[in-house]
């Protein structure tokens, strides 16, 4: 993080000339940094046009009552102009404390948090466990590694359908459960089982990435540390606690952050697993999509408002996470 190639050039002029006038400073800054700006220009333009503008537009939509009946649309060759009107913060008020706030927002909010935490914990624990097993000297570990990556290698939209077949009422999973004499859950109909199924599938999809990243991290830990710990009489648990976990901390913090963001925003799995059924298993992202595109009339304003709220949640989370990481680094 401390790679500053052009830094020396940046230091010298300042020490020679002191307190340049503002115009001069802008000119200096331009001369010094124009190539940096030129190099980031494509991305800045792309993000501005494709992200910034729609985002601003989307935010404006949340302050209106836009839906598919009053938005601008084209039918054949006729263009109908938008007729939605500005209603201020009403959408947010309705989502957060309107009469249906619990059913529509808070229940999904709670479930989204439960879903994210459960999935990431499962990803991390199972991933770390498998990574540690694979990090040993072991016959066939390359083969195991390749097999275990499979869920990650196959496109999600393919595997979710495989799971849908397997979890169907008379599918293979229920046949197996039935064969050992247990009650067969209706995975795709009952709300609790729908949620379980969603977590199950997402865990299956997400473990390989964690496993591979953590395996990379494990391999970068210096063997001598273990040797030293062993000589000092550290037990296996103590070695894990005081050598392995600290050695993994930087990888862990990255993959956990990615994991939380990906899981929180996980669209494909729930969308493809349940289609338009299962209102209870929808996390906020899929619920927002449903409001905007899965019903008639499409409620664009509400959907966008959900989107803005989701983004706010993620921004708050990410900044706290960063602050927390920084504090921990200082302690270490």
């Amino acid at each position, binding site marked *: 993080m401390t790679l500053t190639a052009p830094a020396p050039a940046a230091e010298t002029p300042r020490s020679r000339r002191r307190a340049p006038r503002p115009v001069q400073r802008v000119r200096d800054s331009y001369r010094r940094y124009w190539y940096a700006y030129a190099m980031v220009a494509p991305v800045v333009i792309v993000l501005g046009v494709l992200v910034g503008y729609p985002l601003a537009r989307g935010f404006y939509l949340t302050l209106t009552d836009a839906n598919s009946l009053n938005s601008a649309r084209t039918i054949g060759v006729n263009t109908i102009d938008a007729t939605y009107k500005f209603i201020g913060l009403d959408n947010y008020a309705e989502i957060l404390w309107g009469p249906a706030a619990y059913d529509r927002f808070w229940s999904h909010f709670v479930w989204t948090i439960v879903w994210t935490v459960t999935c990431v914990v499962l990803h991390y624990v199972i991933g770390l466990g498998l990574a540690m097993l694979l990090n040993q000297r*072991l016959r066939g570990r390359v083969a195991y590694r390749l097999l275990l*990556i499979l869920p990650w290698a196959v496109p999600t939209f393919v595997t979710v359908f495989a799971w849908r077949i397997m979890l169907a009422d008379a599918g293979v999973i229920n046949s197996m459960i039935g064969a050992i004499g247990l009650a067969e859950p209706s995975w795709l109909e009952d709300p609790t089982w729908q949620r379980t199924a969603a977590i199950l599938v997402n865990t299956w999809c997400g473990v390989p990435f964690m496993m591979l990243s953590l395996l990379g991290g494990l391999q970068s830990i210096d063997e001598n540390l273990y040797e030293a710990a062993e000589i000092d009489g550290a037990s296996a648990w103590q070695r894990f606690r005081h050598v392995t976990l600290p050695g993994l901390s930087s990888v862990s913090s990255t993959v956990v952050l990615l994991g939380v963001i990906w899981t929180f925003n996980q669209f494909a799995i729930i969308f493809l697993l349940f289609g338009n059924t299962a209102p209870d298993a929808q996390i906020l992202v899929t619920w927002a999509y449903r409001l905007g595109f899965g019903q008639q009339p499409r409620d664009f304003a509400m959907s966008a408002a959900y989107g803005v709220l989701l983004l706010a949640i993620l921004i708050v989370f990410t900044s706290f996470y960063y602050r927390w990481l920084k504090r921990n680094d200082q302690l270490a």
Partner: protein
Amino acid sequence: MTSSPSTHAPRKQRRRGDLGPVGQVGTHVTLAVASLIALFPIVWLVYLSLGPDKDDYLHPGGIFAKATLDNYSFVLTNTAFFNWLWSTLVVAGGTTLFGVMSAATTGYAVSRMRFPGHRPLMWVLLLTQAFPIAVLIVPMYEIFSQLRLVDSHLGLILVNCTTIVPYCSWLLKGYFDTIPVELDEAGMIDGLTPFGTFWRLILPLARPGLAVAAFYAFITAFAEVAFASTFLLDDSKYTFAVGLQSFISEHDAQWNLMAATAVLIAIPVTVFFYLVQRHVVTGLTAGSVKG
């Protein structure tokens, strides 16, 4: 990333890493069970794709007796499979090309140069990766329907770029970070401009990183579901991610055909993925694994 523990001095009697017999068996059993769980859904899908009837998944035992490749030939000859293939390649290829090209210089600038606005830019790049699709999908839809970009491949490429571009920039920054700065300095001393250094020295060295970014962009665009489901209307323009859903409508679920199509899609992608997966992980966590 080339640290191989085995290059150290011979350590035959080392205890760590050598398990007792119980540990050996336990490890193998755990890994075997995990591998089985990892493998099973795919194997099952392949198996079901051989059953000729759409309800065969309900009594899979019967498939053994009547296994055929009919589903495959049906999918290849009577469905829009090749249209979907073309759409998917156009969308994923376009996204990759556009994404990687615009991201490369930014990744380099962010990795090497400390310019005013550097931090906010990093923050925006990171934040954009965290965007829930729900934030952009509605306004994009509105804007695109005015621009008549709904139901066009170009439109889908553009929406995909909202996630791919920041991601690739970040990924490439990680890769550029691993290239020693001394090279840049050497380039400067030899009289190269920053662009020259980037173009003549760093870019050729970063080829593996570019490949990973390209691969990642391709795979992500390939498997993208939400945007594709919303922005594509005409079923001959579907990408695979949308096309596959069309086998299971509310009225009729043709699981057998779906399974066959899924296998046809998954096999090349999976093989491709295996070839490069090591680099992908390195790329994704670059900077943090170095410790």
